[in-house]
């Protein structure tokens, strides 16, 4: 399988603190890769360096073989790399439908053609399909801010998929979601993966969620990659157990 994302010797320091310390890994086309690690292990910083929100102190990031280190998030998104954030990030005053259209509109035509083109940028049907897929049909015209936390998490994930990305990075998608909604979210992500053969990278604390969703797992501790393997292997890895339990 070819690598969609390659990260080589990525390092990020904040003053004297090394948040990410020479991390290298690759994400293969069509896989769901999990990244786990205790609090403060550098997972979100790693994500932010890969996605252009932070500029790495050293190292390279490549998407489909193309060097993207330090590229602006909007340019990366147009290359087919999408993400969700650890904290909920929908646009509360826009309707669910408008949130989804917004998530795809910048991939349609040029800025000038968007001004003179259709109000929904020709994404009306695609938005409807996504609304149906994530089972938000009865909420399509509601402002996103009026949805429950779990429903907003679903919308957040749906927005990340709206432009048909090659690679989606999900930063703690299960954070703060109740068990019923968590099962629903996992099932929708698995269905999307099966249907569209999308490539995911998931950062998560909820171990059951990661173990059930991911085919391969990387473990970070103190900014370093300490283990890699199938969920089954990771559960039994003594280094991982030590990093989590601290003995």
């Amino acid at each position, binding site marked *: 399988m070819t690598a969609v994302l390659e990260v080589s010797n990525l390092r990020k320091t904040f003053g004297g603190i090394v948040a990410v310390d020479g991390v290298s890994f690759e994400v293969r086309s069509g896989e769901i890769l999990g990244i786990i690690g205790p609090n403060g292990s550098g997972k979100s910083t790693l994500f932010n360096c890969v996605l252009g929100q932070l500029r790495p102190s050293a190292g390279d990031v490549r998407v489909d073989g193309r060097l993207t280190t330090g590229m602006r998030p909007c340019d990366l998104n147009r290359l087919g790399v999408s993400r969700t*954030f650890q904290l909920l*990030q929908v646009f*509360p005053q826009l309707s669910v439908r408008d949130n989804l259209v917004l998530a795809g509109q910048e991939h349609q035509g040029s800025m000038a053609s968007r001004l003179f083109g259709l109000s929904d940028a020709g994404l009306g049907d695609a938005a409807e399909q996504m609304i149906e897929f994530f089972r938000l049909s009865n909420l399509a015209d509601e402002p996103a801010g009026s949805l429950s936390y779990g429903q907003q998490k679903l919308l957040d994930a749906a927005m990340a998929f709206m432009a048909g990305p090659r690679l989606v990075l999900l930063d703690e998608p299960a954070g703060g979601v109740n068990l019923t909604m968590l099962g629903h979210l996992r099932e929708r992500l698995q269905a999307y993966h099966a249907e569209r053969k999308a490539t995911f990278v998931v950062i998560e604390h909820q171990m059951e969620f990661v173990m059930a969703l991911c085919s391969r797992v990387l473990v970070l501790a103190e900014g370093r990659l300490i283990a890699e393997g199938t969920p089954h292997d990771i559960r039994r890895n003594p280094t991982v157990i030590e990093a989590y339990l601290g003995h």
Partner: protein
Amino acid sequence: MTRAGLTIVAVALAAAVAAPFFLKPFGIFLISTWTVLTIAAIGLNLTLGYAGQISLAQGAFVGIGAYTVALLTPAGVPFFAAFIAAGFLCFAIGWALGYPALRVQHHYLAFVTLAFTTLVFLVLRNEQWLTNGIYGITGTPRPTLFGWTSSGARDFYFLCLGVLVVLSLATWWMLHSPWGRAFVALRENPVRAQSLGLDTRRYTLMAFAIGSSLGGLSGALYAPLVQFIEPNSFALGLSFNLLLMVIVGGSGNFFGPYVGALISVLLPEWLRVAQGYYLIVYSVAVMVMMAFCPAGVLGLVERASRLVDGRRKAISGTALHTGGTSK
């Protein structure tokens, strides 16, 4: 827009067309001022209300537009060419002023734009060779279009109203295109917007440039309206007044600037019965309004209409329930 909304707009437009036939010259001057300042407020509403970029420079753009027309028309440039030049000039300067907005936000950005307004004021006052300094410029001619002259108060009002309608339709179009959604995204969450492919840099600059351009076009009508312009008219007071219009009307609401400008232009005149105290009464009225309806007058109207809708639904729900159990 709903049918009720369309009806309100049609009635308001009919009232705006009929108004000058029932008003004395000063009344016509006031409603002309309303049309002109509404255009500037629409621009600021775009920059601030939709795109979330605070600007205290809108008054300066009105000044740049006014001086552009006041300087070009006596030199033989046709009014409409000078009008368009004012729009383009302010677009270019607004674009440049947008660059600080890429680095600073909120009150820091307010200070940057405030400094710009002061700078424009100083240029207008001190560069006497160009602007005639504190003596100002008088007698900017009112335009003639295909043989029809707008030199009369009523004719010029209709010209201003026509320009307001055209610019309103253009703004409505833009805000209902994907650009409008992008501006709101920029205001609500620029980091997320960027992660969805929005070039926030370009949209920020565009919001500044288009908003400033509308300020310039407003100024281009202001000069022939008042026929005497001088630097003090475009000092910080005007920028604050325009900000007040947007916030009192309802920031981020399409019709907010129309209502805000109406209140800002007419309320001080209505309060003249309070003689020397009218500014105090006006200020207190604005403070009370902001304390009780921070979303502006239209925010209050929306809240009331939601309340009425909610009650109506509750009543119809109760009626349905009662009907169901009686059978």
